[in-house]
C-alpha cells in the first residue's frame, strides 16, 4: 500500500507542478467569469442604461396618436409631417413610423417603420405591442368595456410548477433549472472522464515507451503502479475541480458586485414578487433562484461527487489497460472505440431522450448500467425525488462492483501488456492475457 502512496504522490505532484496545469486551472474560472460577466453586463446594461429611442410617429389616420403609450426606453414623438430626409439629418431621431391615412381599427394595415439602423427583435415586438394595445383597447371600448376593466386585463400569466410528494407536501419545480443543472453536471463528468482518462493512458504509454516500467515493476507490483497512476491523476482532477469551483465562486461574486447585480436589486425583485397585484415578468428571475435552492443540493452534490470519481475510476482503469496494450499513441485507435462509444452515446441520448423523459424506462436503465450511468444519472438527478432513491442506491452499488471488476480486468491486461513490446495486439490476445498466471 505504501508504494501506491509514493506512486500516487509522484503522479500528482509531477502534474500539478506543470505550467500547463497551473495555467489551465487559473484561466478557466477567469474565462467562465468573463463570459458570465459579459452576459450580465450586456443584459443589465440594456435595461438600465440603454439610451432612449426617439421615434417620430406620423399618424395620418388619427387612430393611434392620442392613446399610444410608449414602452420603457422608447419615446414617441407625434408629428404632422416628417420626411425621410429629415430623419437622415436629425441626430436625435432614431426612427420614423408612418401610419397610412386610410387606417381604421377594423381594417388594419401595415405600419411603415423607417430607420437608419435595423430594429432589434426586442424593440420591434415592444413597438408592435404598443400599437396593438391601442387597437385592442379601442375595439374593447367599442364593445362597451370600460377603461378600468381594460387595465385590469393587463396581466401576464406565469405557470409556476409544484412537485407533489406522497406525503402531500408540495415543492416548486422548474424544468429549465433541472435540465440546465443536470446537463452541466453530466457534461462535467463526461469531460473529466475523457480528459483525465486519456491522461492515464498517455502516462502508461510514456512509461512503456520510456522502458522505465521494467525498472519500476522490479520494485512494485504492476497493479500498484497502475492504481498509483489512476489515483494520482484522480487527485489532480479533484484539485482542479475544487480550485475551479472556489475561484469561479469568488470571481463571480466580485463580478456581480462590479456589474451591479447586488443584493439591493434582489430585495427589490422580492418585493415585486411578493405583491401579487403587480404582474411582472422579472418574477421568473427570483423564482429561478428559489427553485434552484429548493433542489436537494446536498444529495445532488454527493451523488455527483460519487459518479465524478466512480466514472473516472471505472473508465480510467480501462484507459490504463489500453495504454499498456499498445506501443504508441497511434495504435490506441482500435481499442479506444469501445470505450469512447458508450461515453458519447450516453451524452447524446441523455441530452435528448433522457432529458425529455427523465424518469422513463430508458433513462432508468441507462442510469444503472455503469458504462452510461455517470452521465445519465446526472441528467436525471434533479428530476428524481425520494421515490427514485432506490435507483440511485442500485446504480451506486452497480458502479462500485463495476469499478472493482474494471480494475481487476485492467490489472490483468496491464500486467502482461506493459512488458510486451513490438507486438500488434488483438482483442483475442487481450482476452488471453486475462487468464495468464503471471
Amino acid at each position, binding site marked *: 500500500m505504501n508504494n501506491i502512496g509514493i506512486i500516487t504522490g509522484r503522479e500528482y505532484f509531477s502534474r500539478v507542478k506543470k505550467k500547463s496545469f497551473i495555467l489551465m486551472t487559473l484561466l478557466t474560472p477567469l474565462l467562465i467569469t468573463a463570459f458570465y460577466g459579459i452576459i450580465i453586463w450586456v443584459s443589465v446594461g440594456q435595461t438600465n442604461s440603454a439610451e432612449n429611442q426617439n421615434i417620430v410617429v406620423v399618424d395620418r389616420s388619427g387612430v393611434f396618436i392620442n392613446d399610444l403609450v410608449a414602452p420603457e426606453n422608447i419615446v414617441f414623438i407625434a408629428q404632422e409631417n416628417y420626411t425621410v430626409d429629415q430623419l437622415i439629418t436629425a441626430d436625435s431621431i432614431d426612427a420614423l413610423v408612418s401610419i397610412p391615412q386610410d387606417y381604421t381599427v377594423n381594417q388594419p394595415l401595415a405600419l411603415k417603420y423607417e430607420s437608419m439602423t435595423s430594429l432589434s427583435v426586442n424593440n420591434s415586438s415592444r413597438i408592435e405591442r404598443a400599437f396593438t394595445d391601442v387597437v385592442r383597447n379601442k375595439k374593447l371600448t367599442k364593445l362597451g368595456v370600460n377603461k378600468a376593466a381594460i387595465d385590469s386585463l393587463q396581466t401576464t400569466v406565469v405557470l409556476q410548477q409544484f412537485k407533489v410528494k406522497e406525503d402531500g407536501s408540495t415543492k416548486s419545480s422548474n424544468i429549465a433549472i433541472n435540465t440546465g443543472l443536470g446537463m452541466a453536471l453530466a457534461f462535467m463528468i463526461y469531460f473529466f472522464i475523457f480528459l483525465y482518462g486519456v491522461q492515464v493512458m498517455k502516462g502508461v504509454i510514456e512509461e512503456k515507451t*520510456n522502458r522505465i516500467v*521494467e*525498472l519500476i515493476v*522490479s520494485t512494485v507490483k504492476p497493479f500498484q503502479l497502475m492504481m498509483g497512476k489512476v489515483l494520482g491523476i484522480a487527485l489532480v482532477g479533484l484539485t482542479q475541480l475544487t480550485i475551479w469551483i472556489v475561484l469561479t465562486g469568488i470571481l463571480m461574486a466580485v463580478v456581480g458586485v462590479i456589474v451591479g447585480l447586488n443584493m439591493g436589486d434582489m430585495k427589490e425583485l422580492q418585493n415585486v414578487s411578493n405583491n401579487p397585484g403587480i404582474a411582472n415578468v422579472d418574477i421568473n428571475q427570483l423564482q429561478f433562484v428559489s427553485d434552484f435552492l429548493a433542489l436537494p443540493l446536498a444529495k445532488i452534490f454527493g451523488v455527483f461527487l460519487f459518479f465524478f470519481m466512480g466514472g473516472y475510476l471505472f473508465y480510467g482503469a480501462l484507459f490504463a489497460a489500453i495504454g499498456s496494450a499498445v506501443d504508441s499513441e497511434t495504435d490506441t485507435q482500435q481499442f479506444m472505440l469501445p470505450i469512447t462509444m458508450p461515453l458519447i452515446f450516453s451524452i447524446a441520448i441523455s441530452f435528448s431522450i433522457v432529458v425529455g423523459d427523465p424518469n422513463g424506462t430508458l433513462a432508468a436503465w441507462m442510469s444503472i448500467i455503469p458504462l452510461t450511468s455517470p452521465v445519465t444519472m446526472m441528467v436525471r438527478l434533479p428530476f428524481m425525488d425520494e421515490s427514485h432513491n432506490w435507483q440511485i442506491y442500485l446504480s451506486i452499488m452497480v458502479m462500485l462492483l463495476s469499478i472493482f471488476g474494471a480494475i481487476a480486468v485492467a490489472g490483468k491486461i496491464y500486467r502482461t501488456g506493459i512488458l510486451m513490446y513490438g507486438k500488434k495486439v488483438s482483442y483475442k490476445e487481450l482476452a488471453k492475457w486475462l487468464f495468464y498466471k503471471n
Partner: protein
Amino acid sequence: MSIIQIQKVSKFYADHTALDKVSFDVPKGCIFGLLGPNGAGKTSLIRIINQITAPDEGQILFNGNPLTKDHIKQIGYLPEERGLYKKMTVYDQLIYFARLRGMDTSAAKKTINEWLEKFEATTWKKKKIEELSKGMQQKIQFIVTVMHNPSFIILDEPFTGFDPKNTQLIKDEIENLRNQGASIMLSTHRMENVEAICDNVVLLNKANVVAQGTVMDVRNSLKDNTYSLTYRGELKATQFTGIDIKENVQKDGNTTLLFTYNDKPDIQLLNNPLIQISEYREVIPSMQEVFLTLTDSSHE
C-alpha cells in the same frame, strides 16, 4: 555460500521455451557473468529473479531461502532497456526510486549526494533527465540501481553508452561494490569485459546452461592441448620432432607455431640451441572463442 541458487527453473511461452530446467549458483561476493546470445533466455531469467514474472517450474533461493517479495529491496537492477522519467529532475527521480525501494527520505538524500559526488554529478541535481547527455543519464541510472545498498545487483549491459573513461569508472565501481560485499550478476556481450572483471560465469544457449564455473575453468574446459611457440632462428618447423603442427606463421623474422604434442608435453624442444624463444605458452581459448564455440548452432 551462494547468494542466488537457480534450481531447475523453466519458463514457457506460447511459441517457445525461454528457460529449460536451468540450474546454477551465484556465489556470494563475486562478479558473476550471465552470458549467452540474444534469445538464450537471459532476460527471462533476470525478470524471474526480479520477480517481474514467475517461473513455470523450479525455484530460486536467495541466501538459502525461497525468493519472496521481501527480497526485492535487497536487489538492485539495471535493465538493458534504460528508462527514467524524462521530465523529472535528477534529484526528484533519485528520491522517488529510493523511496520505492523502502529508504526514508533523509537517508536517501544522504546516499544520493554521496553518489552524485562520486560521479561528479552534483551540478545536475536540478536538471531534467532529458537535458542530460546519454552518458550522464547512464550514470544516473547506475545510481538508481545501487543507491539502496543492495546485496545482490543485476547489471544488464552496464557499459553501453559509456566512453572508455566512464567504462573504466563503472568497472571500478562494480569492483568496489563487490569488495564491499555485494554480489553482482553481469549480463553482457562484451567478452573482453567478462575476462577483465568476472570471477564466475554461466553461459546460456537456447534455454539451457552450456557452461559454468570460474572464468578460467570455463576457458580451460575448451582447451585442446594446443601450444604456441614464437622464436627466431634457422630451424625450420618441419625439423621439430614429436609435435603436430597446426599453424605456421612467419612474420618479421619471427616464426609462430601452433601445435599439439604427439605424446605428453616435452619441453626438450625449448632447449634447442638453434632458436631463441620469445614466447611459449599453452593456448587457452578466450571467452570470445568459448562463447562462439559453445553457442554455435552447428555445434549441437
